């Protein structure tokens, strides 16, 4: 046998395809070829040289060829020889055989690969399973240990329990014993007591006899004079009649007491029955939904109608005057039934509410909740309004109470109230107007400031322009009249006034612009246009004096005007 070696085979030419990890080759020593059966190992990338050189040398070509032919034919391949059993080789068939062999080789390689992969997989699976197995074994161990521990505890507790039971039994026995002891002692004491009492009674009797004997001599009672009875009557003799009368009186007393008690109980009963009736009515009124579904629960509906009939009957019968058992039972039973129905109803509602809260809302529910909220808001508003009304009414009442009861005063109060309310309204309006005026004034002041600034700028320009003019004019013609500068000046002034009026126009326009919203805001407009017209008048007045500081004066004046009004 050749020796198995694992060698790292150097990669050869294109003949070898794969380098398999498990390569074991059998390296045949050339000397042992003839004696052994060749074992085909997986075609590895071993050196073909060695193999070829080992198998077929130049001497034994024919032998090797015939050997190969035999092998191939045994394997099912066609012979590589030509038809005749000569030494000629059929090349075609040889090539075919070689091809077939190669294909076979490939197949085998692939199969080997697959097998190796499977092998690996199985190996890893096995590892995994082994790990699992180990873990499970550990767990099993742990749980077994736990069980053992718990069993131990259980045993301990049970023994404790038994001990306690035993103790309890002992205590109970002791208690029983003590009770027996007590009872026996009690009977003994009673017996002794009775004996002593009898002795005592005997002594008492003796003493009594002695006392009675002695007493006869003395006068037991000294009274100056007899006192009349408290109620003036005379004492009566002791006769049967009196005894009978005593009995009678006693029974009368008892009977009157019983009668009184019975009256009280009757009153209580009637009150309670009334309360029950009311409760029943309330409960019936609280159970409308059941009436609306007669189809679904026809039986319940029938029951209800029956009950209602009963109720009607009972009501008709004036049952609180009767107090027989059946009527009472009927009443209580009917109330119980209806109370149960009410309870079911309320439970259903609760379930609905809880279901709704848990999330399975219908649209209906959502809407109803929103409606509900709206309604609550409305109600709250109403409540607030009512509260305010109540407060005002209380105040009015208090005022009324503090005043005299004259009607004229009351009327005066009413008138005063009316006037006061009117005044309050007017105050409110006035305040609003004031606010608006403030706003306008602000805007006016802004505009005025702007205007002032513009005027300043304009004045400056004018000044410079005049200077230029003057200079140019004087430069051009110095011989002209003195008046011309004034005329020019006047014309300038008029120009300036014209120009000056522009900002006034602008102001008027702005005022008019502002006038319109102001007029819209206040309903009672009477004082306002008057002010605006004053503004305009002021502006027109101011236009004649194109001085830069007129505007602030105007504003101040208008302020004054405002304040005076």
């Amino acid at each position, binding site marked *: 046998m050749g020796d198995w070696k694992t060698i790292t085979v150097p990669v050869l030419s294109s003949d070898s395809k794969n380098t398999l990890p498990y390569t074991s080759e059998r390296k045949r020593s050339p000397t042992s070829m003839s004696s052994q059966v060749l074992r085909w190992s997986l075609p590895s990338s071993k050196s073909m040289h060695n193999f070829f050189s080992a198998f077929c040398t130049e001497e034994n070509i024919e032998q090797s060829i015939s050997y190969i032919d035999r092998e191939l034919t045994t394997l099912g391949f066609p012979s590589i020889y030509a038809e005749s059993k000569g030494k000629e080789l059929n090349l075609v068939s040889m090539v075919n055989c070689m091809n077939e062999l190669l294909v076979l080789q490939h197949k085998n390689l692939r199969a080997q690969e697959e097998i190796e992969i499977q092998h690996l997989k199985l190996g890893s699976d096995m590892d995994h399973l082994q790990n699992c197995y180990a873990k499970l074994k550990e767990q099993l161990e742990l749980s077994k240990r736990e069980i053992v521990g718990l069993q131990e505890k259980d045993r301990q507790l049970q023994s404790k329990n038994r001990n306690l039971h035993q103790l309890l039994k002992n205590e109970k026995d002791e208690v029983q014993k003590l009770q027996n002891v007590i009872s026996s002692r009690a009977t003994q004491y009673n017996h002794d007591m009775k004996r002593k009492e009898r002795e005592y009674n005997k002594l008492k009797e003796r003493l009594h006899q002695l*006392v009675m004997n002695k007493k006869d001599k003395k006068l037991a009672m*000294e009274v*100056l004079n007899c006192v009349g009875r*408290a109620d003036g009557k005379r004492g009566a003799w*002791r006769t049967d009649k009196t005894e009978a009368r005593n009995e009678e009186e006693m029974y009368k007393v008892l009977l009157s007491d019983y009668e009184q008690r019975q009256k009280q109980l009757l009153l209580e009963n009637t009150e309670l029955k009334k309360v029950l009736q009311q409760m029943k009515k309330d409960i019936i009124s609280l159970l409308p939904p059941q009436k609306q579904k007669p189809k679904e629960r026809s039986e319940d509906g029938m029951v209800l109608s029956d009950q209602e009939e009963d109720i009607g009957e009972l009501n008709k019968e004036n049952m609180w005057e009767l107090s027989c058992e059946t009527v009472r039972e009927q009443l209580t039973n009917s109330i119980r039934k209806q109370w149960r129905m009410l309870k079911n109803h309320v439970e259903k509602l609760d379930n609905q509410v809880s279901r709704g809260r848990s999330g399975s809302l219908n649209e209906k529910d959502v809407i109803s909740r929103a409606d509900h909220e709206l309604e609550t808001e409305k109600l709250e508003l109403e409540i607030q309004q009512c509260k305010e009304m109540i407060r005002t009414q209380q105040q009015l009442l208090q005022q009324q109470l503090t005043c005299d009861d004259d009607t004229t005063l009351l009327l005066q109060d009413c008138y005063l109230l009316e006037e006061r309310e009117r005044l309050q309204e007017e105050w409110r309006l006035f305040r609003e107007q004031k606010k608006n005026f403030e706003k306008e004034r602000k805007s006016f002041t802004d505009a005025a400031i702007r205007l002032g600034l513009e005027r300043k700028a304009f004045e400056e320009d004018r000044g410079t322009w005049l200077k230029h003019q003057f200079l140019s004019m004087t430069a051009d013609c110095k011989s002209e009249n003195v008046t011309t500068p004034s005329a020019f000046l006047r014309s300038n002034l008029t120009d300036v006034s014209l120009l000056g009026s522009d900002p006034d126009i602008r102001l008027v326009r702005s005022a008019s612009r502002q006038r319109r919203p102001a007029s819209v805001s206040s309903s009672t407009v009477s004082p306002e246009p008057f002010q605006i017209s004053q503004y305009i008048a002021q502006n027109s007045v101011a236009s004649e004096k194109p001085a830069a500081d007129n505007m602030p004066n105007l504003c101040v004046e208008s302020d004054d005007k405002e304040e005076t009004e």
Partner: protein
Amino acid sequence: ASCVQHRLVVRDASSLQILQLYTCLDQIQYIEWSSDSLFVLCAMYKRGVVQVWSLEQPDWHCKIDEGSAGLVASCWSPDGRHILNTTEFHLRITVWSLCTKSVSYIKYPKACQQGVAFTKDGRYMAVAERRDCKDFISIFVCRNWQLLRHFDTETQDLFGIEWAPNGCVLAAWDTCLEYKVLLYSLDGRLLSSYRAYEWPLGIKSIAWSPSSQFLAIGSFDEKVRILNHVTWKKITELEHPATIASKKTIVYKEVEKSPTVGTERLSFPPTRALASSLFSTQSKYEISQVPVSLQYIKPVADRANPKVGIGMMAFSADNCFLATKNDNIPNAVWIWDIRKLKLAVVLEQLCTIQCFQWDPCQPRLAVCTGSSRVYLWSPAGCVVVQVPGEGDFQIVSLSWHSSGDSMLLLSKDNFCVCYLEREEV
């Protein structure tokens, strides 16, 4: 009326002016007014003599001598014209009539705490008797002292009897070794019997409510059980624990105020008034926060009649409140609201409670603890009233006037009258 040694002093109730002065033969042990307030009886137990004085006629006198029979107790009958004397060793009860000078005897009366009970209207009298080691009750008609009913009771040793205020039911209860209450109707039938438990010590005190609706039974287990008059079954148990935890109970605690004395006014030797004010401490009520734990005393177990259990009970006149005292917690008065059957108020005092009594007209309770202060409680609040005066006036017992306007405070040697002002409406 008050007695000093062997003199009887009768004063006017509103002005305490002395109206009459009588002298008796011996030291007076017991005095009692007759029901129409015309006569006063003075009993001298040592001598065995009872003397009766009249208010209308100071010259009228009456003397009843029991002789060798001796005298243990004496009382008026409800009509104010008969005197019942209990002779020594409870041999018999002698009924002396002031109108007819006649005598009646009741044999074999029972020597117990409350052996004789009169109905509120004064018609009937129940007497506890014992013959041949068995208890009996006899009911007499007070008008002519005729025996109406005589029946035996199922008690071991009858301890006391009491009529209900409506005069139709008689409660009889057994000795403290047996817990048993028997209720008899006026004609002697047994209406019901009630027994709460068997072995521990039983009933200590009993109180009827003024409307006869409830019977309160105070027992040695520190509980009060209330029976109702319709079924004679227990409607509730009122417990008296040492710790009060309920939030709805108001606890008033008496707290001492340190006396304030201006140091400039101290003079040597100190005046009497100053001395007394230094030594007498003022006190006031404070409301304690719940939970409150009261002073609990566990008495010695091997003594008879231990200071355990509900010793004192009283219903208010309007039937709304029940005041109780648990002898284990001797400094506290427990006031229960009967309408709600709940504990309403607890008054915690500094000293042991000696006596309390309800105002006969209003729900007002007066309490005394042996100090010189009387404590008043009403649903509106409570107040401490100091008895003014020199030295210590230790109030031992108190008694209301029937109109509810004034109160009698008794100490060992003195008494004083406390007038209560009515509120101006």
